[in-house]
């Protein structure tokens, strides 16, 4: 018989207590994996969404990120075509999308509302970002020539505020790059929802040419750079910054993803605290089970020591027992978490909208092998550690006292 077999047999002495310990460790592990899997799924979704919105990298004039513009496009990129060509020469860059940011008023003739506008390359934007807007009425921008007048898409809140519908004509007013006021009559092609009501009450999309005409400038505000792979972001940033020189600044999606960082920070705290509580509960239960098992076996441990077993050998055996209980619970918990995650993957359960949002999102749990590995190892190692601490104290008890223990 080996020490491991001896330790495993010891875990079966009091089967009910061992079963309870294993079940609590399993539920704890499942709780940790499900909550962290949910957070991970949220992080992944938000990260992808943030990178899709801005591009993996955002390129602008170096001053654009540091100072407020006095006039629109004051720090715009003059030579967009040249910049685009240089960016596309990098093998990791798949798409380059221009954006012109502006603010102004949108008027239906009777009422004017503050609007935030983005001039985009509609065809490229939809091709790269997919259906990033939920069209509520009308059609999305296509950016094709042939329209009788420039076209815009409005957030549905903005359209409601002005009581306008697709096909209606509205006027865009903004300050030009020279500081003068300019107005442009545009036709509403459609309305959309981003899922965030506050944004839907202000946002206007139009094509780059219309935005530039409104601002009376040929520059673009920023350039969104889309890479072949999400993971290439940091390396590509270094290369592109070196390629374009100090006149330009390159920011990663992460640096611009304020919402993502806020959610991650919040979730880390919430789920971190939850995980810590679960771990403490699991450890208390395991420690309690081991303490009871050790106390019940005080006389036996004294006998083993009398036979020549070293305290370190006893501690090792009891540590294996703790690891076996914790490990069995962790594996069972991982199985439970995996099962629940798979059920949710196919069940299509929808979560209610988050605060500040108008649309829900699917309840799904990320299945990360690394996360499973860490959780199993952590619960096993901590169970082993707390058994070791308890065993170390007991193994030092004088043999005569241990043998006389009743």
């Amino acid at each position, binding site marked *: *018989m080996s020490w491991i077999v*001896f330790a495993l*047999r*010891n875990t*079966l*002495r009091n089967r009910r207590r061992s079963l309870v310990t294993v079940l609590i460790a399993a539920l704890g592990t499942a709780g940790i994996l499900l909550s962290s899997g949910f957070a991970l799924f949220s992080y992944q979704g938000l990260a992808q969404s943030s990178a899709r919105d801005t591009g993996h990298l955002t390129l602008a004039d170096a001053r654009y990120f540091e100072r407020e513009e006095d006039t629109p496009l004051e720090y715009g990129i003059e030579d967009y075509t040249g910049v685009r060509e240089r960016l596309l020469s990098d093998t990791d860059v798949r798409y380059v999308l221009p954006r012109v940011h502006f603010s102004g008023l949108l008027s239906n003739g009777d009422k004017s509302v503050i609007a935030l506008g983005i001039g985009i390359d509609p065809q490229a934007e939809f091709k790269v970002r997919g259906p990033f807007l939920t069209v509520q009425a009308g059609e999305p921008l296509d950016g094709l020539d042939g329209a009788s007048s420039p076209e815009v898409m409005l957030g549905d809140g903005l359209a409601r505020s002005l009581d306008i519908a697709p096909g209606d004509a509205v006027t865009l007013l903004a300050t030009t790059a020279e500081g003068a006021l300019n107005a442009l009559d545009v036709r509403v092609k459609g309305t959309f929802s981003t899922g965030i009501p506050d944004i839907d009450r202000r946002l206007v999309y139009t094509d780059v040419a219309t935005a530039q005409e409104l601002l009376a400038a040929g520059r673009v505000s920023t350039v969104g750079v889309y890479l072949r792979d999400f993971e290439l972001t940091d390396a590509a940033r270094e290369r592109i910054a070196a390629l374009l020189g100090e006149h330009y600044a390159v920011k990663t999606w992460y640096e611009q993803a304020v919402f993502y960082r806020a959610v991650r920070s919040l979730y880390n705290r919430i789920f971190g605290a939850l995980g810590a509580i679960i771990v403490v509960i699991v450890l208390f239960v395991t420690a309690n089970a081991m303490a009871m098992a050790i106390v019940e076996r005080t*006389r*036996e441990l004294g*006998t*083993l*020591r*009398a*036979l*020549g*077993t*070293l*305290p370190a*050998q006893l501690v090792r055996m009891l540590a294996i027992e703790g690891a076996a209980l914790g490990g069995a619970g962790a594996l069972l918990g991982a199985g439970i978490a995996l099962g629940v995650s798979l059920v949710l993957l196919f069940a299509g359960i929808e979560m209610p909208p988050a605060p500040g949002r108008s649309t829900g999102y699917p309840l799904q749990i990320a299945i990360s092998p690394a996360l499973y590995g860490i959780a199993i190892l952590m619960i096993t190692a901590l169970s082993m550690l707390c058994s070791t601490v308890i065993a170390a104290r007991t193994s030092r008890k*004088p*043999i*005569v006292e241990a*043998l006389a223990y009743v």
Partner: protein
Amino acid sequence: MSASAAYVPVPATHPIRRSVCSLRAATKSYQLGTHVVHAVKSVDLDVMPGEMVALTGPSGSGKSTLLNLCGLIDTLDAGEYRFENQDVTALSERERALLRRASIGFVFQSFNLVPVMSVADNVDYPLMLAGLNASERRRETTAILARVGLESFATRRPDELSGGQRQRVAIARALVKRPRLVIADEPTANLDSHTAEQMLVLLRELAHAQSSACLIATHDQRLVARCDRVLEIRDGVLQ
């Protein structure tokens, strides 16, 4: 791990070899609340190889304490202890454990078998500690179980055995490693008279066959009658 790292027995042929266990002016006291109990007072004791020594005396006279001292599971307050002519008085806890593992067997009143181990595993345990390989262990275990008549019970658990059978397992466990000294504390106290008689015969046979010395604390007069020498202890003093 080997006992030889801490303790080197004197070869049997060596001229200085005499007693297995030799106590000189051995003294041991306990603190019991505010009261100090002088359990063993300046005891001199020698046990020779192959000798079976009975230690008798009323309860609380110091029998168990003397056994614990000889078995190296307790330490002297004063005096000297030589085991196979080597001074072991001041050995460390680890060194004493290694010496017990190599050279001392124990038979307890309540058998003290490990309930999750089979009979064979209980007997095998001291050999596992000694670091013998699997085939040697199997051979030795099978042989000693045959000697105590429990060969066919090898896979049973202790709770499937009678009291007498359990004590035979305990004797086999104590003697399987061929110890120089066997410490037995009231080994027949939990046995009926017939079984106790069988135990005595068995213990004596096996111990003599291996030239193991036996130091037995007992009230049992039949056991006393079968021992080579009887020592009486009263109030911590050998009479």
